[in-house]
């Protein structure tokens, strides 16, 4: 099967997914959807890493896969902290919409 799909295919899918995630993070009102957009961007970067690992000159060095696994772990931690922040802000201001949380004064 490999050799059937060129590396460019995977890179284009990753680029498109990244752009979709970025569009979601920049255009939606709700804070949680911004976090979903960020997760999509991280996932697109992971796909890039794994694709380069697979098609690279030394796949037995496992660099790309290790990087992707650490990225998955860090992204999960970041999602946890980010969502904790969103919940905490909701408790304080009773809204999760970013347009309404535009003032620095608490």
């Amino acid at each position, binding site marked *: *099967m490999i050799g059937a799909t060129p590396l460019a295919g995977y890179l284009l899918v990753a680029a498109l997914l990244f752009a979709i995630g970025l569009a979601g993070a920049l255009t939606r009102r709700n804070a949680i959807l911004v976090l*979903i957009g960020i997760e*999509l961007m991280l*996932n697109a970067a992971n796909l890039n890493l794994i694709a380069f690992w697979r098609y690279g000159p030394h796949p037995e060095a496992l660099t790309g896969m290790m990087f992707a696994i650490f990225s*998955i772990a860090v992204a999960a*931690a970041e999602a946890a902290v980010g969502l904790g922040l969103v919940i905490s802000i909701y408790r304080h201001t009773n809204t999760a919409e970013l347009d309404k949380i535009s003032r620095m004064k608490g």
Partner: protein
Amino acid sequence: MWRAKGVEGSAVVLFAARFGTHDPWRDARKDGRLLSPIFYILAVLTLAGGLASVTLKHLVHCALAVTVAFAGLALLFLQLDAQFAGFAQILVYIGAVVILIVFAILLTRGSDLPKEGVFSKTWPVGLLIAAAVFAVLGWAVLQSVRAVPQQAAVPAVTVRDIGIALVGRYVLPLEIVALLLTAATIGAVIVAMHEKVRSR
């Protein structure tokens, strides 16, 4: 480039006609002119899931659509022979991150749709920026198609190799990630904890 590919393609055809059954699909795949159908399906699934997750109105639908996107990505990892990364993706993202997102949606009353609509006032600018980013990335990928290798042998990666790498070459990142996860766990608990009611 296409002429070179044509020469290579016809060479493959001649080789195949001499030594194996003539299979036009296989030769087209070796050319890179026809992508694997599984890759097409998975790519469409992932991109559709991602697109649905940023455009749907109801938050829980968005969370379920992003689950589809994560599942599509996990299957793409499996197609790239990265089984450990694929299963870790399912376990961590679908098994934990999506559940976290869903809990956050439920705890912040995401079911109440805002009156002014779900997209912010400055949505055209955001869309333009995303399109520009995709244009730059896509141009960079297509420009460098010649430079990257097109075929690779299947790497024999066992879990044992990953384990040895994790405690050998990558032990420092492993320990740092462990510290980071501990800090993130404690931080998330403290950030989301109810403040103690102080009586004044």
